Structures are given as C-alpha cells and as structure tokens.
C-alpha cells in the first residue's frame, strides 16, 4: 500500500474495501481468560453448595464468597487486556456492555435476595400480626432459578452477536436448566447453577483459549 497516489479502478476500490473489512473482522481475538475464571468459580461454588446440602456438611465458610473474590483478578485481567488491545471493534464494545450490565444485575439480585425476605416479613407482620411470622419463610423461593435466567442472558447474547456456538448452546442449555430448576429443590438448583457455570463459561472459555493459541479468530 505504498503507492498512495496510484489511480484506482472501481473494482480495485471495492476489493480494498472488502479486504480491509474482512481483516478488521478477523482481528477479534478473545483469550477466554475471564470466561475460564468465572466458569471455574461459579462451577466450584455451585457444586460445593450442592454437595454441602446433599451430604449435609459445611466447609467452614460460604463458598459463594469465591465469586466475590474473583472480582479482584477480573480487574487485573481487564486492565491487562486493554493494554494489549490495539483495536476496539463495535462487536467487542457491545459484548463488553452486555457483561457490565450483567454484573450490575447480579449485584442487584444478590441485594434483592438479602433484603426482600426481611422486608416482606415486616409487611406481613404489619398485616397479619407478629404471631403469623412463625410460619413466614425468610428466604426467596427458587432463587437459583432467577440466577439461571441471568446467567443465560449475557451468554446467549454473546453467542448470538459473536456467532460463537459454544456460548449460544450454553445460553440455551441454561434456559433449560431454568425450567428444570422451577420444579426442583434449592439443593438441586445449586447443582444446576454449578453445571451452568461450567457449560456456559468454563468450556467455551477453554475453546476460546485453544483458538487464541492457534491464532484463529473467534
């Protein structure tokens, strides 16, 4: 491309446009680091919670805290990825926005699950009297189902936008898990959440990593 003043024919112009748009598209390289990390922590948290409830033991701390702890390495991963990123595509920007909104929504859902049972109990007591609180549940029924819907949204959206089949499939499976979770107890919901983490993010993350190492675009 050094002969900048060379007179172009219409066909050459069209060829340049097509070639450059293809080159820009082919540049999307996702390393899969974040997907592997989040898939691992949600997978471990879900499976450990399931085993704790099913076999009736306690590991000594709330295993879901590892999901919060994963925010710290995620910050470092994001900073590092931004440093090596030479180009920001519209697709990457849209996918980033989806995951940021997902993160905010998960935060809101955790807040909802922790606040609403007590607030509901207060309203219930005001309406039916303190004595009626004896049988009032202090938890949200099938909260795992709501998490499964939220897991599915960014995964399926990413799969559709980027045309990445493992995430597309993961998102669909996650919606199936949601339907199943509506009929299962909280213990089995934990198993579904753990499996969703593995299917939605861990496996696609490894596929992305393998493609990145082979130098293939997503």
């Amino acid at each position, binding site marked *: 491309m*050094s002969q*900048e*003043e060379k007179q172009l024919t219409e066909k050459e112009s069209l060829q*340049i446009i097509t070639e450059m748009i293809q080159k*820009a598209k082919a540049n999307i390289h996702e390393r899969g680091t974040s997907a592997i990390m989040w898939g691992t922590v949600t997978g471990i948290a879900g499976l450990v919670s399931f085993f704790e409830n099913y076999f009736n033991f306690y590991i000594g701390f709330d295993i879901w805290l590892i999901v919060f702890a994963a925010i710290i390495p995620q910050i470092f991963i994001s900073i590092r990825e931004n440093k090596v990123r030479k180009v*920001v*595509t*519209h697709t990457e*920007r849209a996918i980033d926005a989806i995951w940021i909104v997902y993160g905010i929504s998960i935060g809101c859902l955790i807040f909802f699950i922790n606040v609403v049972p007590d607030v509901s109990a207060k309203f219930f007591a005001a309406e039916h009297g303190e004595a009626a609180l004896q049988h009032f549940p202090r938890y949200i029924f099938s909260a795992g189902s709501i998490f499964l819907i939220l897991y599915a949204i960014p995964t399926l959206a990413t799969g559709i936008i980027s045309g990445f089949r493992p995430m597309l499939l993961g998102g669909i499976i996650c919606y199936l898990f949601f339907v199943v979770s509506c009929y299962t107890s909280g213990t089995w919901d934990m198993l579904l959440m753990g499996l969703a983490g593995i299917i939605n993010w861990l496996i696609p993350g490894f596929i992305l990593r393998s493609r990145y190492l082979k130098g293939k675009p997503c």
Partner: protein
Amino acid sequence: MFKDLDPILHSQLRLAVISLLISVKEAEFTFLKEKTNATAGNLSVQIQKLKEAGYIDVVKQFKDNYPQTICKITPQGVKAFEVYVNNLQSYLSANK
C-alpha cells in the same frame, strides 16, 4: 449521470484506512500499519490528510511511557464513506 468519486477517499491507502476504521470503534496506528502493510511515514501522511478532511479523529497519548496514536472515524467520515460506496456501486452497475 455519474458523480465524481471523493478524491480524499479515492486513494489506495486512505481508502484502506477508512475501510478499516468503519469496521471498528477505534484503532491504534500500529494496527492500521499492520493491516495495510504501509510504511509508518506514508501512513502518517495519509492519516493527516483524512484528519484535515474531517473524516477521522486522531488522539495522541502516552501508554506505558510509549507514544500511542488512536484513530477513530467521525460521523462526517462515515457519511463520506457511504456516499463513496454508493457512487462506486452506480459505476459498477453501469459497467455490467
């Protein structure tokens, strides 16, 4: 009746740069250099011409103590590219 193709865009390297930038939100100078296989000097000159025409925005900053040039297509650049492609299509369909 054919309209003249925009002389700013009707150049091999400038068209390549605009075609890359239309596909992305923003890109570093090194990315454009790598994809167009142009020399740094030639690319700088063509980027400057696109900037003067108002087709791209160029931001120069430092990243990890190294200078970094980020290019981004402007709404005026998008419009010019659309007009260029439309005119190109009319030329090509007339030549069929």
